[in-house]
């Protein structure tokens, strides 16, 4: 191996400008791949973070109520005119047991029971429709760390305290410490104290959510002891659909992952990944063809020297090795330069760019890119190397 390596390096060093040109070509290709991969990964992480920052990975609910129609007796034709049933607010049966069961699942990181229902918020003559969200603070915080989005007051519910969204507070002219009247219908009215104001950056939530203590909400909505939703987070967010399906089978409840709830987003992310992969693939292909053509030219240029080396006792295998090593070196060195350039681009984007989001730099990206580039180099070199190995020394020596 030593001699193949030695000859390969000497050959590359001798044809310096050729080597430099192809290295620049490979470096440009690799930097594009590194940058675009980091960019898209960063972008997707960012989008997913923002989306999942305000919602659970899986929502477990009671199955929808449906009419049960008695089958007709034999020989009787039955005509059915069916009105779909209105979905009333219902508790999940035996939710404490369900929650304990979910707590025990390996892929699940947090479980939080939530009771949510509609109400009106009134202050003076102003009236807003809101969603009451009754929570167990400790558990809910593990799903949505809302305490860090508090802009005024503190995240405190219970004992008549409520936490409301920034937009709702603006609409009703509320400040921390003010009183807010909540009307859940059926003469269930209560007055709560605004203990904190949050801003999640999602309009729907900021203008409608009113966080309350779970018990108080149960009273207001007339569901003593009940919850309507169990929020779940999982370890691997992209396995949420699998876990959701398992929870569905396990509990017999309706279990929906964020991927189903955000089908369009998932679709966009998948297409984005696909197009990134396509770009990477084609850039890699053109790099591979570049390496192959440079080495092909080199084989022709060195035909005579190859003949001499063969006459001196170089085996076909050694000759093959010389050119495969050149391909590998092209890939390795080119990708090292290209990775550095790619990182520089990422740095420039993070520090000088539009500042829309931050691209995290994955430490595994460079070794992976370099390994792939090296393998690509070897594969691209295969054809020219084979030609070099198969050159007839008699013909090659007389080649001018």
């Amino acid at each position: 191996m030593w001699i193949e390596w030695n000859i390969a390096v000497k050959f590359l060093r001798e044809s310096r400008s050729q080597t430099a040109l192809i290295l620049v070509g490979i470096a440009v290709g690799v930097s594009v791949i590194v940058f675009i991969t980091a960019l898209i990964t960063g972008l997707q992480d960012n989008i997913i973070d923002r989306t999942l920052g305000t919602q659970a990975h899986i929502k477990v609910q009671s199955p929808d109520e449906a009419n049960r129609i008695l089958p007709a007796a034999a020989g009787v034709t039955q005509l059915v005119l069916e009105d779909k049933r209105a979905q009333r607010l219902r508790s999940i049966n035996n939710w404490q047991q369900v929650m304990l069961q979910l707590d025990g699942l390996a892929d699940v990181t947090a479980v939080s029971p939530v009771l949510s229902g509609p109400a009106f918020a009134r202050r003076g003559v102003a009236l807003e429709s809101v969603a009451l969200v009754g929570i167990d603070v400790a558990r809910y915080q593990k799903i949505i760390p809302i305490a860090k989005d508090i802009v005024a007051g503190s995240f405190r519910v219970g004992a008549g305290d409520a936490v409301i969204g920034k937009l709702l507070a603006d609409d009703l002219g509320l400040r921390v410490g003010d009183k807010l009247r909540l009307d859940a219908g059926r003469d269930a009215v209560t007055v709560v104290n605004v203990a904190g104001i949050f801003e999640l950056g999602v309009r729907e939530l900021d203008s409608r959510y009113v966080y309350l203590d779970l018990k108080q909400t149960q009273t207001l909505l007339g569901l003593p002891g009940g919850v309507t939703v169990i929020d779940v987070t999982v370890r691997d967010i992209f396995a949420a659909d699998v876990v959701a399906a398992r929870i569905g089978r396990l509990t017999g409840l309706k279990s929906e992952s964020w991927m189903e709830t955000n089908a369009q987003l998932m679709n966009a992310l998948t297409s984005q990944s696909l197009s990134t992969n396509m770009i990477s693939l084609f850039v890699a292909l053109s790099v591979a063809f570049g390496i192959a053509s440079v080495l092909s030219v080199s084989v022709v240029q060195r035909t005579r020297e190859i003949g001499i080396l063969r006459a001196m006792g170089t085996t076909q295998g050694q000759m093959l090795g010389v050119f495969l090593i050149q391909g590998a070196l092209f890939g390795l060195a080119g990708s090292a330069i290209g990775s550095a350039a790619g990182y520089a681009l990422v740095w420039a984007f993070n520090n000088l760019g539009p500042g829309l989001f931050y691209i995290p730099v994955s430490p595994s990206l460079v070794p992976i890119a370099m390994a792939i580039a090296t393998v690509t180099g070897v594969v691209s070199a295969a054809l020219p190397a084979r030609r070099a190995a198969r050159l007839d020394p008699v013909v090659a020596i007389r080649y001018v």
Partner: protein
Amino acid sequence: MSEQMQATAEDSQPVLRLQAIHKSYNIGQPTETEVLHGIDMQVGRKEFAALIGPSGSGKSTLLNLIGLLDSPTSGELFLLGQPTREMDDAARTALRGSSIGFVFQFHHLIQAFTALENVLIPLMLAHGKPSKDSVDRARGLLVEVGLEKFVGRKPNQLSGGQQQRVAIARALVTRPALLLADEPTGNLDSKTAAEVFALFRQFNEKFGCAVLLVTHDMQLSDACDRQIRLVDGAIAQG
């Protein structure tokens, strides 16, 4: 005693023996031509022979066969007593690397390597990274061909005669049993040619390697101990 007998037996065996060698090109095609028509010859140890003949007589073809760069269509070629026709590429290459040294008309050095490295190539190919002994041997040969001051130079920094001396040193570094030279002085002026020829003589005597020299130059061939004349693919005198 038996060792001595063995050595004698080996000594008496020719370095090279050709047996009814035929060589044809474009076999099976309408342009099929036979270039060599049954060559029988042998070259003994320490022999210093010239292979002469007009252009197109098959000299180069014969030299390629002897150098194991090509294989005969029929017949058998024994190198150091070993039959070579059935050998695969790896075995041929190994035998070629260890027992034959080549010197070509156009020096044929590897441009990317220095003079010393060029001389070391055959050893590096056989044994990998050169040992100190190998480097010493290569350096010693360069000194003997009068290039002690040029060991670190690249071929393009050497004159034609100097390059040919490097090529001779390279051919001898493996201590081959047979040195093949194809018009080694064809590209040199007469003074340099004489010096190069003297080197062949010197190494023939010093290392005891057989020399087979292909040449057009009658003066050169006359200076050899034996002349093998090839005419129209057959040996006319040998």
